[in-house]
Each structure stands twice: as C-alpha cells, then as structure tokens.
C-alpha cells in the first residue's frame, strides 16, 4: 500500500521539487503535476490521497498572492476539490499554497472565501528568515499541541487578517489555529517583529479546517528536512549534537511524515 501525493504546479511554482522530496522521504509516492493536466482532464485528483500546493509565485502573483491560480482552480475544479476534501483526503498549502487555499475558499471553511485573507506584511518587505512555530490546536490529526518547530518563512504577503471579530472568534472556537509564531523563550502572546515576521493577527502562522485535514501555513516545513538545513547546525555540531545521519531530523519533516502515516491509516480503514 502506498500513499500517492499530488504536488500541484502552475507557472511560477517554485517549491515543487523539495515538496516531492519531503513526501518521498516520508515514504509516499509524490508526483509533480501541472494544473493544466487536471483542467484538461488528462489526470484526476481522485488518483491521489494527498494534495500539496507548494510555495512560489503562481502566475507571478501580480494580482495578489495566489489569486490567478485560485481563480483557475475555482473555475475548473471546484467540485473535484470539494469531493476530494469531503472524502477525507488531506490537503496542505504552504506559503503560496496557503494563499491559494484561502483565496479558493477551502480555508478556513469550505465556501468561506471572504472570511480571512493573507495580505502584505506590516514591514512592507519580503521577509526571509527562520522563525519558531508553536502548535496551538488540539484538533489536528497530525499536529501535537505545544510542539515547537523551527523553519524558514519567505514571503511578502503573509499577514493573516480576518473580515470580522465573529470570524476570529469562530476560528478560535473551532480550534482552527494550527500554528502561532513564537520566540526563543516561548513567550505567550505576540512575540513582535521579527519573530512574528508579518504582523499576523494573534501571531497566526497557519490555520486548518475544523477537522484538521486541510492545513495552510506560511512557513516552509519542506526547507527543514535535515539537521544541516538549520542555521545553527555548525554550532550544535561544535557542541556534539549533530549526527552524520541527519536526514529526517529537521523539524519540518514531521509534518510530511505524519501526513503520510495518517493517509496510510485512512487507507487501512477503508
């Protein structure tokens, strides 16, 4: 039994190879597929158990991050996507993929395409830096509340905003805040810039659907698959804590590993 992962690409997708790599390290069979293969009906979403929308600048993001690809998916594949999710398959959107899921209305709840948005960082700059995340949901099939994970962010439009206080309350009530930015001390509350690199409301770095099977996050777990990806590995090595067998030791790897494990579990159950 193997888990098949669709790594969706379009013009401007950048993180497809490393996302494939992450899922393959986790034991899945991952395939890069151009969106046109789906819209033209040459391939079908139903061949897969996990849909990953990786980072990049889909179609250049010149009309706002993720807008054009989200529009294309909504116009051509809306039903397929909804069925895919309803059947209990998992979806992850990373960075641009997160922006697309939000724009598409798959997050925070299906059809909720005017509830939240990811807009320009408060700094007004593209921000590329390593940050710390704390898992803040208890309702995820793959994440454990309180876990702290380190990985890079790299985006200009990652500031989560909500359309109303009610929607924010709803997110909290449904336990949909998957990740919050935190600092080295693990401070509760907003750690401030640059630990919160974009000024997101309530330091939110990622959200999930109420059941947790659709996950969107601005940070890049696929860029921390091995301990040597971490900016301080030379320091850890000097202190004797980096082994030669360093692959799969990165914080980001656990997300892919658990998604694949969960998919296997779901397959076993059917």
């Amino acid at each position, binding site marked *: 039994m193997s888990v098949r992962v669709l790594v969706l690409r379009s013009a401007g997708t950048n*993180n497809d190879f490393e996302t494939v790599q992450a899922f393959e390290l986790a034991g899945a069979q991952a395939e890069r597929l151009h969106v046109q293969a789906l819209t033209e009906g040459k391939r079908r979403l139903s061949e897969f158990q996990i849909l990953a929308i990786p980072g990049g*600048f889909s179609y250049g993001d010149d009309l*706002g991050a993720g*807008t054009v690809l989200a529009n294309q998916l909504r116009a051509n594949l809306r039903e397929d996507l909804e069925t895919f999710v309803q059947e209990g398959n998992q979806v992850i959107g990373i960075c641009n993929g997160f922006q697309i899921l939000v724009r598409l209305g798959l997050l925070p709840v299906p059809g909720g395409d005017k509830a939240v*948005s990811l807009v320009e960082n408060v700094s007004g700059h*593209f921000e590329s830096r390593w940050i710390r995340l704390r898992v803040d949901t208890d309702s995820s099939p793959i994440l454990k509340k309180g876990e702290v994970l380190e990985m890079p962010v*790299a985006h200009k439009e990652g500031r989560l905003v909500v359309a109303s206080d009610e929607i924010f309350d709803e997110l909290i009530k449904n336990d949909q805040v998957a990740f919050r930015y935190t600092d080295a001390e693990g401070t509760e509350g907003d750690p401030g810039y640059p630990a919160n690199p974009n000024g997101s409301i309530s330091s939110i770095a990622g959200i999930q659907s109420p059941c947790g099977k659709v996950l969107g996050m601005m940070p890049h777990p696929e860029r921390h698959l091995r301990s040597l*990806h971490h900016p301080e590995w030379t320091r850890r090595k000097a202190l004797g804590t980096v082994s030669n067998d360093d692959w799969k030791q990165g914080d980001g790897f656990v997300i892919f590993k658990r998604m694949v494990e969960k998919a296997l579990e779901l397959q076993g159950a059917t």
Partner: protein
Amino acid sequence: MVAPIWSIEVFPRGWNESNQQGPGVVELAPEDNPRGRALQEEIRSLGWDSVPEIVVSDIYFIQSEGADSGANSPLGLDPEKLKEVVEALLSDPVTQGFSIEQLEGGEDTHSWREALHRATVLKRAGVMDPSEASALHGLADLGLTGFAVRTATRFYFYNKELNAGQQEILASKVLSNPVIEEVFWDRSPIQPPFQIGGESQFQKNSISLEGLDDDELMKISQEGQLSLDLNEMRTIQAHYSKLGRPPSDIELETLAQTWSEHCCHKTFTGVIDYRRVEPDGTETKEVIDNLLKQTIKKATDEIDAPWCLSVFVDNAGVVALDEEYGVSFKVETHNHPSAIEPYGGAGTGIGGVIRDTLGTGLGARPIINTDVFCFGPLDLEYQDLPQGTLHPLRVMRGVVGGVRDYGNRMGIPTANGAVYFDERYIGNPLVFCGSVGLIPRSQVDKEVRPGDLIYAMGGRTGRDGIHGATFSSVELTEESEVVSSGAVQIGNAITEKKVLDVLLEARDRGLYRAITDCGAGGFSSAVGEMGEQTGAKVDLEKAPLKYDGLTYTEIWISEAQERMVFAVPPENAQALEELAASEEVECVCIGEFTDSGRLELFYRGESVGDLSMEFLHDGNPRFEREAVYQVPAHQEEQFPTETSAGQALHRILSSPNVASKEWIIRQYDHEVQGLSVVKAMQGPRRDGPGDACAFTPRFESDATVVVGCGMNPCYGDLDPYRMALSAIDEAIRNIVATGGDPDRVAILDNFAWGNTRRPQILGQLVEAAKGCADGALGFGTPFISGKDSLNNEFQVGGKAINIPPSLLISSLSVVDSAHQLISMDLKASGNALLLIGDTKLELGGSHYFRTVGGEGGIVPDVDLVKAKEIFQKLYSLVEEGWVLSAHDLSEGGLAVAAAEMAFAGEIGAKLELQKVLSSEDLQRDDALLFSESNSRFLIEVSQDRVDDCLKRFGSLPIAQVGQTVDSDKLEIVGLSGESILEESLASLRDSWQRLSKEMGPQVEVS
C-alpha cells in the same frame, strides 16, 4: 464605434470611509497602509522636512479588443459582470474595496476621498507589465476573452499642499521613472496606452558606403547607434565594395552587434602596445597580442585541472560536482541599464545571467544566484547629484528590488554577494549578477547540425532593448537617460520560469541538440553564434511579436527578455511544441540551420540580409590600443592620530562597505529549493556575516558547493596588480574559512573598468589581468569563465569621471560532504583563538585609512607560495574537525574579524597583540589591528588542540593570540601589555547594524 474603457480602482478598505476629519486629512490605520508608509520613507530620504501622507490604489483599465459589441466585449460586459471579475481577480475581499467607472475623455469619476492631490502613474506604451498577462489569464479562466488590459498606480496625497516643483520632484524621483512611466497629476486627462506599435510597413533598406570618407562613415555609425569605430567602418566599406553592393540595414546592424565590445571583447582580444613606467622613469615595453589569451586563459590551460569540464567556450564554465553531475557558474554585469532604470535593469541583469545558466551545455538547472553591487555614497547631498544621474539611494533600492523580485519569482536562492561604495560609481553604478547551475555531465556539450530547426521559446519580441549591446559599449553622458531609453528592458520573471520548466523537461527528453540564450544583440547574436560553424536561414516574420509595427531589423536585434533559441532535429519538433503548449509557453520555429556557411535573413519571403559567417565572426579588424601604467611612487604611511582603537573599530564597523547587509539579504529568498546548508547570516542571532554560502545541489548526494567572492576597488587606484592578487586571495579565503577545499576552487573574473580608450586606464587593466594570471597559477586555481564591462565613464559638465578599477573574483569550490563545513560565530568560552598568516604593514587602501583618516602605504601583497600552503594546512585542520569557527581577515583586518565572530556567537574574546606574528616586526597597535594583509584567518579551536594545530602548520605562520571568554566584551591588549580596547559586544553589533536598520523595514511596535 470605439469600445469604452472601464476604469476599475482598487483601494484599501477603511480609507476615509467615515470622512470625519474633513478635506485634506487621511483616515487609514498605519498597518493597513504599508505602501503609503514605504513611500513616505523614500520621500523622507529626499531630505524633505515635512512629508505628505499617501494612500496608494491600483487602477485597471479594461477595453474590448477589436469588435465593438457582443457578449464578450465591455459593451456587453455590464458593471455586475465586472464586479464579479474584480472580486475574483483584482481585489482582496477582506482588505480592499473598489469602484468601477468609465473613462471618458481621459477622466474617470472615482472619488478623491478628500485628498489634496492625486497622481496617476502609467507605464509607457510597450513597457512590460506583468499584471496585464495575469489579468488576461484570469479573465480567460472566467470565460472572458478578447480584452486588453492596462494598469496604473494612483497616489493620493494628504496633509500637505504640493506646489508644481514638489510635484515634479515626487514624480521623477519617487513615484515613477520617466524612462518607462508617465505621471498624470490631479485631473490631467489620462490615455492608457492601448494602441501601441503601429502599421507594419515593409521597406527594404540598404546603406551605400561607396566612396564615403572617414567623417561620413563615422556619421553613419554614430547616427545609427552602431558604436563601430572608423577602422571597423572602413573594413565593412571595403568588404561590400568587393561584393559590389551596399550593405542592407540589417546586415550593418548584425555586424555592429556581433562586433560590439559587449559581444566579442575586442579590447581584451586585441593588440595592446604596453608601457610600464617605474617611478624613476625607467620603462619596460611589451606588445601584448590578445591579453585574455596571454594571461587568464593561459593560466587555466597551464593548470589543466581534471575537474574542469567546460571553460571559456560556453555561456558559463562548468566543473565536476560528482561522477554524474557538474556545476556551472557565470557572473554578468548589467551596469548601464541599471544606471538608467535600476529596478528593471537589475531584474533583467539577474534574468539574463539565469538564461546563461539555462543556455550552458544543453541547459543547467539554476540553483544559486549571487549579486555584487557598487554604488555612489548614500549620504550624497541632492544638490551634488550630477545632471542625468539618479541618487545612489534610489539606485540601490531599485537594484535590490529588481534582484529580489526577479530572483525570488524564479525560485532561486540569492545567497552570496557584497556591496561597495565610492563617489565614482554615482554616474556608473555596477551590478554584477551571478548564477550557479546543476547539469548532468552527459549534457555539457552541444552541437548544431545542418537541417536542425531554429526554435524561439519564451517571451515575445518587442521594441524593448534595441541597441543594448552597442549601448553597453559606450560612455554614459548626461543625455544617456534620454537617448538610450530604448536600451532599457523590463523583464517578466514568470515567463522565464515557465521557460525554465519546459526547457529542463525538454532537455531530459532529448528534444533538442543545442541551445543558447537571447541576450545582448537578441536573435542576431544567438542565431549568429549558434550557426557560426554551419549557416542559418531565418524568416523574421515568424517571430511572435508583442505588437505590430516592428521593422525586420528591430525584430532581429531586439533584446526583449526571456527568450531562448534551440536547434531542434525536425523529428522532435512536434514533441517540443506539444510540451511547450502543455505549460502555456510559446515556442515557434523561425528558421533552420544550413550548411551554407551564410547567415540568410528573410522577411515575408524576400531576402533582406545575406552575410558570410566567416566575415561576420572573423572579419573584424583587430583592435590596436596603447596602454601605459605609471607605477606610483611609494608614499610613507600617514597614520591617523587622536583616535582610540575602540573608536576606530566602531567607525570601520559602521562604514557602508563593512556594515551589515542584512536588510538586503532578508529580502532575498535564500532558502528556496531546500538545499542551503551554510547561510549568509550566521550564529544564534543569525546576525554574523558568513564568509561564503554552501548548498547541496542534489537530494541524492551530499556533494556540496561553496560559493564566495573577492573584490576591493579601494586597492585598484594604488596597485591594480596587487588588487587582483588580493581579490583572488580573498575569494579563495572566503571558501576555506567556510570549510571548502582550496584545491577544488574555480574562479571567475569580471572586470568593470573605466574608459579603456584612455591609455592609463587600459594600463591598469593590463596590470590587473597579469595579477589574475599570476594569482591563478600560484594558487592552482583556474578561471572557468569571465566577462568584462569596459568604458564605464560618465561625462558631466565636460568632465569625465571613470569608475575605479573594479575587479570582481567569484569563487566556487566542491566538497564531498557538507558535514565538514564551518561557520564564523564563536562557539563557546574557554577555547583558543589562533591567528593564521603574517601581519604586515599593509595599510594602503585599507578601511582604517579610508574611514578613520590616514594616507599612503602599500597595498597588501600575496606570497603565493606560502598562501597556498596556508590554505591547504587550514583545510587539513577543517578535515580533522578541529576548527570550531573561522573567519577571514579582510576589510578592517583582525579587529573587525574578531568583533564579528564575537558578537555573532555571543561569546566574549580577549586578544593580545604581542602574540600576533609579523615578519616585519610591526610595532604599532593600530597597524596590527587594522592591517589588511592577505591570507589570514582567525580560527577557534579547543585549547587541547592548539599544539596539534601549531604542529600541523610547521614553519608556516600560526599563533595563539587569545581565547574566547565568558563575557560580553571584546578586549584587546596592546603591545605595551595594557588593554587598548574594551567594547561590549552589543555596542559593536549596534555599530555594525546601524546602516542596515536604517535601510530596512521600519516596523512600528504597537
């Protein structure tokens, strides 16, 4: 009936919605207005004491193309349908609002929302606007086709009246670049450039040269912007006289492009009559036949490294990574366009060098970008800015933005670089962009065969970038901003990214036999080069155009971006076309390669040009130039007085060349592709300046490339030969300090020089080239690729300003395992600090003298025998795993290196200058602290490894000069035994970061 133009304005939600405060006052939360705040920052940097509040909106103009009615035209597209389009595509549902109006007589009726002024900025006709393509794609997904879209940005001003003069300043210095954009203030009627190009007229032209005298020949060259000199014009005249016909316009242009300095490096390959004059007047003379062959290429040939897979023959050099793969490396300059339009110029600079990677062998996958910039001083007063130049601050912000937006969109980490400042770069900023690629070793070679079809892939051809190749070969003047605007290209990274995706897939499927990029000279250079050994026939009307109205010559020499040219066996043509179509990439056959040995150009079936490849490539007359190098007389050091070591260190750390570049680095996505193992910023706070970056290009193997660079224009004025040696030493040093293998380093040269028609300036070039050759041979480090950008001279007020001799050496090394690499941050207290190398009285051109005061002195030399051994010995310590941290000593010498290591690691350090080894028995504290002698490192090892390290070095210079301590200070004990410097790490860090914090994001902490 003309179809109406819809004007859609998209603006921040909440903006003056309540209108409680009345006219002229803005109501919008600062965090909802990052664009307005960023502009205010820029205006403040103009020196204005009161700055208006600004709100920015986006305007989209939509018009039906062609037909004036029907469901799909705006006539049939009612505001309700438009509203759906805007909600789906053009606005953010949570943070933006919009209004939809019609543009009538150039006026729209969008609300001013109580603003005092507004300015609408439109791109000029034909300038690339990526938003258009995105909007059209989105409309098509919604089933709406047959539209044209133009975009504009609108700025609303509050809280401050702007007079005409202020409007003019804002328009030209902040809101727009007049070269590519037009500004409409307040209610001035707007005309979105829907009509561009024009009627396509075909008239074949020839230019008779028969019987013309020298003046007339030169007039033709100048008026046609051909940049051909008299000798070349005479050669062309004689050639066509023999043929008995005049050259056609396209033939003359093809020759001008191919023979341009940019394309064939005629200075470097010409004959130089060289005189070297010693201070006492004695002269040595030498005739140098092909400087490139006599120096740089010769060194590479002699070194003959077995791991060099391709040198100097392709778009980039290639070295072996492992048994299966190689890595390519190329660095290009894009100076003149960046001087005129920094954002577009730098973006197309990085786009161009990435295409070099794509066009290397059968195509390499780009994995790392590098960037090195040289700008005028940032604190230049506006009244001192020469006519026709942009302020260095604006140039820098534009250049950084251009590299950022292009590199990030391409998904390639920009991970190594440097920035230098000097007054002489004001009119001539330098922008070096590098690209490293990964290529299967089996695909390093390419060969065009007669019968192969010529395919053009990627962007369409427009009028952009006409005469870029010849433009880059002339001096800039006050007028350049105006006359050369055609030479500015604006890129669209997504087009190139799509080409990259298709190209690599086509490569792996073996669909083509050869490939090159369309760079300077456009099709003329690409096809001309590829068909040099065969012949080529091109039907120019087949090239896809952005708009009608281009002449056949314009099509041929346009430097429109994002185009590649392929040689495709006819049997693979269909597969290639299908592959391209599946990813929405345009790929069109424009001709074929022949066995005629001729370049045959047709337009609509008629022959418009027919050149022999031999004359085109070998017919140009050799350049003959005179060069003189006057060796400057030795000047005794004038040391600065009355400055403490601590003050001097703070001043050097905060000087722009040395100060942190973090604000730039953080804007580049340096982690994309997930291959980065040593970062630009190091240590627990990620604020230490790494010496080199390292990447593992393949997931399957741990083979690692380490990339660094070396440059020091400060040395060039005093001693260009030693400048070259120093740059090579530094480029290798950076790699060794990161744990890279000195015996596996390959280097690249980029000469950016002043006007080499001046013998003194050419003399400096000769000296530097000789330094390059000696350095490469001494270290056994081959050059694998290079590029020159000559004639960087700026004419202002009748005065010629030449840039300093600026040699960039880029370096790349391969190691088998990433695990051995090291970083520069101190790791723990109680460890030994060893200084490697000999510290000499070498302060000529040093940062100590430049920033603190002081003059004279000599430029650091390199003892090539010792330096090579030092690098190898240090590498052996790294392989043993003994080196906990290492940093190279460069600008600011020992003091700066120690400070950076300490604050990066948050570990204190104490050094004793009595312990510093000096073969000259240096007896000055400041000289020991700030000398920039080459081949030196400061390394951290555990105390119990000190003896092993000293033993390993034998007679080579190494000494323990101090230790890491459990404190938050850097302390230095002078020769007297007294402490001469004691500074907190926080204060040193503050000095080093000051500039970066000023330039970086100003985030208001609420």
